[in-house]
């Protein structure tokens, strides 16, 4: 077991592209940390630097308080699950799992018992003599997991391991991976671009964008108080509505000519441009509110998403089905409680804090 520490880590590629910039992060022992962000944000590069598959340009990576910058991947005592599983196609499932142990000179008897144990946990017992090409996607994924756990590593690294599975299997494997990690208690670093995966799996969620960390925290903390417009729109589905607004002072803003009360403790000077974030589920039909025009209604079963316009701006609201008999072209009067409004600076995109009048 180990903790992972990244100290001012940076990665610049030969072409001068800065994939990761001055990034610091500590993942405590036993924690399941998810790195999430759009493609090209540097999350995979970061993972590969921890794995030792990518050189580290600046800063240090430590596992269990030991700097591992110059250690080979094999010496770092980590296991990695790849997006395409990277199973050895010419080896049986058993040999795939045994390979890492054989390389380390573990006795065959011990290998047999460890593989048998992993196979039992992952329900692979009937597949041990098969070759990877004779397995389904979900089974291959489980073999990749098995290969990681037989080694009993200090750290698990996952590089988008569920992206190649269909939606149903993905939800299932999400739960399986999380259960397994909890049972084994191995510190894990998990990379994904899927915010649902990130929200549901993480103990510690790290939102990345353009090579830097936008926000670190527990998933619900990030969901409730996103610190930037980027995080606000990236985490949560459907994404948060962001509306252009102008401060009128005294905790009141104007959106599309409508006066909206925000937090009075935010002493914004009149005329200051801001962005107001409202989660689709926090909008509801109210007697006293603002008028939106319904463009399209998407039904998801229990919920429906109403896509609408408010003046020149677009927004979505999520309501329980049948609560609002909405139709395209219809006008609705809706509102949102002031505590559910998120206020961001229009220029910097940063969240405006109470004691920070900016």
């Amino acid at each position: 077991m180990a903790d992972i520490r990244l100290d001012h880590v940076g990665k610049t590629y030969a072409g001068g592209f800065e994939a990761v910039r001055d990034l610091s992060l500590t993942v405590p022992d036993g924690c399941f940390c998810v790195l999430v962000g759009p493609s090209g944000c540097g999350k995979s590069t970061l993972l590969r630097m921890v794995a030792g598959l990518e050189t580290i340009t600046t800063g240090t990576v430590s596992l269990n308080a030991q700097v591992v910058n110059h250690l080979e991947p094999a010496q770092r005592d980590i296991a990695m699950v790849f997006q395409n599983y990277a199973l050895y196609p010419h080896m049986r499932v058993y040999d795939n799992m045994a390979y890492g142990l054989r390389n380390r000179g573990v006795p065959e008897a011990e290998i047999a018992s460890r593989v048998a144990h992993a196979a039992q946990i992952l329900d692979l017992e009937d597949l041990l003599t098969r070759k990877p090409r004779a397995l389904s996607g979900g089974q291959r994924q489980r073999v990749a997991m098995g290969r990681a756990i037989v080694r009993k590593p200090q750290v698990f690294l996952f590089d988008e391991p569920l992206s190649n599975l269909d939606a149903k299997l993905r939800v299932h494997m999400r739960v399986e991976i999380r259960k397994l990690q909890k049972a084994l208690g191995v510190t894990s670093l998990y990379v994904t671009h899927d915010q649902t995966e990130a929200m549901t799996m993480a103990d510690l969620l790290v939102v990345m964008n353009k090579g830097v960390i936008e926000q670190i925290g527990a998933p619900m903390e990030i969901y409730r108080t996103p610190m930037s417009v980027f995080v606000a729109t990236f985490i949560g589905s459907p994404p948060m509505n962001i509306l252009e607004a102008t401060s009128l002072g005294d905790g009141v803003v104007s959106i599309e000519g409508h006066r909206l009360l925000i937090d009075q403790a935010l002493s914004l000077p009149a005329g200051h441009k801001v962005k107001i974030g409202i989660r689709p589920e926090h909008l509801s039909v109210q007697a006293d509110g603002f008028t939106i025009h319904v463009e399209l209604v998407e039904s998801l079963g229990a919920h429906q998403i109403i896509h609408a316009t408010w003046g020149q701006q677009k927004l979505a609201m999520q309501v329980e089905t049948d609560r609002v008999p909405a139709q395209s072209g219809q006008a609705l009067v809706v509102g949102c409680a002031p505590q559910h409004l998120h206020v961001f600076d229009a220029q910097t995109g940063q969240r405006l804090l109470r004691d920070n009048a900016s």
Partner: protein
Amino acid sequence: MDKRVFFPSKTVPLLLLLPQLVITLVFFYWPAVQAVVMSFQMEDAFGTTSEFVGFENYTAVFTDPFYYRAMGVTAVFSTAVAFLSLSLSLLLAVMADRDIKGAGLYRTLLIWPYAVAPAIAGVLWYFMFQPSLGLFARMLRDWGIDWNPLLNGDHAMILVVMAATWKQISYNFLFFLAGLQAIPKSLIEAAAIDGARPFRRFWTIVFPLLSPTTFFLFVVNIVYVFFDTFGIIDAVTGGGPAKTTTTLVFKVYADGRLGGDLGGSAAQSVVLMVMVIALTAIQFRFIERKVSY
């Protein structure tokens, strides 16, 4: 997915196949049949008439001690060339597959020898190692080696093996490089994380995954040394000294073209043809099973 195309009549598909069929028949089957026919005939000394002699040509071939010698020479030559050209090209391909500066240039240069005609390649090697003129021959002399491929059969064999290998390396290199590039990088990375050092990684992951390529090249190389090395041998040693580099295919030429024994030469080429067909069949039947994964 069914990719079959249906034609309303049989004429159109036949017409489409015709050019290929004609080429195959005229240039492959007809000469083969001619060789078989000629192998049962004997010509008079002036080449004007020929008569049917049954298996006489074959008996002559199989009672000729020089024929068995040529077989031995071919065995040594083909084993050496196939082994050297495959292993050296694999080594070069592994080197070229890494992230190195100027990889494009390096690869292009390695492919060049393939564009050199066999006879030219032979002449090049002949001059480099010609005992009195050759640059390398002089170097060997300076090191105290009594190098003389014109008189020493072993030296002559080494020289043709080098020339034939050099010529084939480019071809093998191309296929090995393509094969290496088709191996997903993540497999190598997974093996690295699994604690396999580069050498072990190569033998346990890369080499087994390359085996279809290796097998294919092995078959192609065997056929190459059996038939296509004629030009090199002719240019470098002319089969000598004392027939130490006369392989089966060179003997076909020497007996038929130079010796004027068309029937005997035809019988030899039929035997050679049967040998190559048998070798290829054996390779496909027994070795291919082991290389599939």
